[in-house]
């Protein structure tokens, strides 16, 4: 045999143990430190009593016996369920019309859905306050004519904002679900004598159940764990995440035990919702794949007009807050009151303060995105190419992190890393690590799906020609996936840059980010400044997506 010369720069460890075992071990250490330990710690804290006699369930007993506490859970479930049902009711028809009908302004609809989807939820809520709040633009205008509108504050306002903010989940899921149904299925139903409505309810809707339930789950979890919107327009209507935030950051240093208990409850609900959806979608999965996807059908003018009007009205309403932010960023502001007079004053004022939060935001986002790209690709590779007990465990842990809300992760990281041996609280590192763990499951999922499309033979050929596993991964796998990794990077960037929940818990004065800065300006009722900062943030979020959709030719379904 010819000896194969080793050329890699691998360390001795890599040579002796092998490339992938070392990588797998590192990934497990990272996941253990950043995900498992924080969760275990908050569960542990929630079961610890103030004194030795009390039951381990004492904290939960307190929660469920005091209305002040348990009412927040009921409130959270109420608004989230209401928003979920409404989002499905408005989102499914919109997706159907936009995918199947020749409605007007399809390009605009696509762009508007994407823009709504990526805009930070708390921006939407304060924008509604600007328009429909007590001294809002539209409220006061209509009041001059003697018309009074229902209040935007409290539960109805939260449900409205959540519905309009999160229906794109349903819209995008259903659009992509519709594209996986073959035209011949619909043709067969029509041919057998079913009208359009009957086809929709007896054929398409049943096939869409997995997509709809996946969209509904995303709406529910997003609504259930959102913290910005209820703070801004909830007023006396208190929800669970806000309670956690309050317990954690109150002026006496917070009560980590109570906050942990609440966080565990939040996590329990999101995990249960995730498992419920998996089970339910599994029951209705039919594994459809379209050779010739459903096509766009020409409609009679009236039907076309009505469908177009419905979709445009919906996305118009969803887009309204964003348009409003951009416009009001150029208006003179006197606290929460905006005056119809053009000015660049807001931008001039934020110029003085934006440097730190902007550079922080870009630095944290970039670092977390890079980590996601590298670790996500490696983890995806282990799951797809090296299946086995460890790969399965890794898959399970990563998928579990889907269900971990930002605020829960924030609380977990704080209670884990606020004392020796490792103190990270208040550092940039803790924010970067939180962003990284939050987005990791998405990166893993996208790398898993792209690896499944890549024939294994290409990598085997490289191994066969004498390149070791590490060299093969870097020289063959990564270059072949480069475009897919790049689109993953752009998506991660867009989704990370607007993070608020975990950031609210983890940030300190020196690690302030753009979304925190906006949030603070809103809470202090400096709407002009908030709008200018919000416009900057929306731009930073949207630009990578423009690249994604135009240069890389991705469809908007890639977002979910």
């Amino acid at each position, binding site marked *: *045999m*010819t000896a*194969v*010369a*080793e*050329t890699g720069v691998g360390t001795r460890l890599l040579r002796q143990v092998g490339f992938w075992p070392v990588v797998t071990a590192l990934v497990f250490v990272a996941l253990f430190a950043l995900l498992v330990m924080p969760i275990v710690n908050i569960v542990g804290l929630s079961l610890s009593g103030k004194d030795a006699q009390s039951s381990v369930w004492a904290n939960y007993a307190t929660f469920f016996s005091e209305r002040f506490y348990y009412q927040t859970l009921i409130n959270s479930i109420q608004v989230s369920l209401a928003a979920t049902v409404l989002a499905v009711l408005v989102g499914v028809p919109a997706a159907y019309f936009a995918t199947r009908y020749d409605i007007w302004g399809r390009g605009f609809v696509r762009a508007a859905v994407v823009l709504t989807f990526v805009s930070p939820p708390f921006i939407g809520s304060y924008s509604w306050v600007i328009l429909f709040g007590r001294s809002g633009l539209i409220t006061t205008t209509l009041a001059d004519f003697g018309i009074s509108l229902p209040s935007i504050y409290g539960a109805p306002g939260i449900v409205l904002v959540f519905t309009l903010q999160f229906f794109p989940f349903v819209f995008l899921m259903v659009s992509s679900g519709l594209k996986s149904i073959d035209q011949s299925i619909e043709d067969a139903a029509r041919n057998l004598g079913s009208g359009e409505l009957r086809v929709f309810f007896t054929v398409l809707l049943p096939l869409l159940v997995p997509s709809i339930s996946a969209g509904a789950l995303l709406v529910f979890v997003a609504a259930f764990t959102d913290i910005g919107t209820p703070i801004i327009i909830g007023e006396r209507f208190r929800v669970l995440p806000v309670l956690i935030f309050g317990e954690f950051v109150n002026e006496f240093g917070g009560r980590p035990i109570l906050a942990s208990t609440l966080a565990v409850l939040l996590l329990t609900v999101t995990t249960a919702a995730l498992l419920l959806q998996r089970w339910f979608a599994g029951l209705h999965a039919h594994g459809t794949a379209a050779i010739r996807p459903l096509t766009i059908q020409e409609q009679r003018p009236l039907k076309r007009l009505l469908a177009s009007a419905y979709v445009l009205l919906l996305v118009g309403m969803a887009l309204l807050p964003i348009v409003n932010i951009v416009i009001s960023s150029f208006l003179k502001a006197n606290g929460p009151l905006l005056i119809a007079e053009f000015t660049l004053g807001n931008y001039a004022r934020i110029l003085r303060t934006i440097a730190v939060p902007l550079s922080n935001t870009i630095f944290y986002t970039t670092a977390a995105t890079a980590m996601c790209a590298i670790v996500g690709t490696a983890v995806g590779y282990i799951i797809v190419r090296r299946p086995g007990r460890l790969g399965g465990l890794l898959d399970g842990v990563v998928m579990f992190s889907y269900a971990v809300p930002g605020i829960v992760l924030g609380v977990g990281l704080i209670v884990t890393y606020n004392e020796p041996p490792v103190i990270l609280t208040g550092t940039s590192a803790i924010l970067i690590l939180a962003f990284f763990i939050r987005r990791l499951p998405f990166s893993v999922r996208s790398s898993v799906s792209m690896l499944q499309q890549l*024939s294994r*033979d*290409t990598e*085997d*050929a*490289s*191994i*066969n*020609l*004498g*390149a*070791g*596993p590490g*060299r*093969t991964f870097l*020289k*063959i796998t990564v*270059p*072949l996936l480069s475009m897919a990794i790049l689109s993953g990077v752009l998506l991660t960037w867009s989704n990370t840059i607007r993070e608020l929940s975990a950031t609210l818990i983890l940030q300190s004065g020196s690690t302030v980010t753009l979304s925190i800065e906006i949030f603070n300006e809103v809470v202090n009722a400096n709407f002009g400044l908030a709008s200018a900062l919000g416009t900057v943030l929306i731009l930073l979020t949207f630009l990578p997506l423009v690249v994604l959709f135009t240069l890389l030719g991705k469809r908007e379904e890639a977002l979910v």
Partner: protein
Amino acid sequence: MASTSVRIEQISKRFGEVTAVDRVDLSIAKGEFFTLLGSSGCGKTTLLRIIAGFMPQSGGRILFGDACIDDVPAHRRNTGMVFQNYAIFPHLTVIDNIAYGLRARGLPKGEVAERVARMLAMMRLEHLGHRRPRELSGGQQQRVVLARAIVIEPDVLLMDEPLSNLDTEMRVHLRGEIRALQRQIGVTTIYVTHDQEEALMMSDRVAVMSGGKVEQVGTPVEIFHRPQTRFVASFIGESNFIPAMRIGSGASGPAVYEVPGGGRLPVPAERASEVGPKADIAFRSHDLVLGPPEAGGWTATVADTQFYGATIRLVLELAPGHTVQVALTGRAGQALPATGARVGLALPSASLWLFPAAAR
């Protein structure tokens, strides 16, 4: 070229309950063109991937020369492999594809360039060196991956159905080319295919596999003309099986078996005593000789006549429920027997094989 002999000893591979490869023993000589032939699922590709090191065997061992390679990882085995779907590196040029294995071995730049250039010339790919794979035809891509596998001077060349994705004309052309190339460089080659024509035409020796086991190993002539198992007889060529009953057992001479249609066929006594009185007789469609019907001879009725151009097939009914296929060479002006006609049959004793009766 540093080629080697290969010994496969008692190799098995189990996936849970399924045994994909079952205690296979093979001995492949240095420089031999050795083919694993079988239908899909017979374990031939699994065996090849075990030899390449892509999956560990469940039992047994593999030797290259005198060295056991069981603990050598795939990338150190120095086996050049050609994959069914090419597995060409789509992001690399032709030159970079061919140079890949040499660079992985850390050879100096000059030597890499020189060996790649030699290989390009040998495969007549010089003008395509800087092209990307997507600009190449299927046949050109196949030549690139072949060059890529050969340039590293592998101990063993492994080929997994390399021609199955090509159209017929290119396939026929390339199999001649691969065979000539293999003779020229003398590399030990293990070739996997389901195409018996390819196996017979290219190989020094063939192993016919079925259900994870090796049914027969031999030269193409042995495999075709002296099938040792019922499976090999039915898998290779176009064979007929008819039930036979022993009616005479010559103590010194051959045994005689009677078949439907009144045929009496002599079989060597030794073979007859192995098989027993109830047996099946197998023969190839083109070995049956047709003549005018004779009283007391072996006769049949023509049930169908199928014209294929170069060949003509007849379906003959020997007796109700027993039909055989006959292939005749189609010559211009040849008169075809009409459906319903009676014909006489003869079968040279060298063309028939006796097997134990199949369970029906």
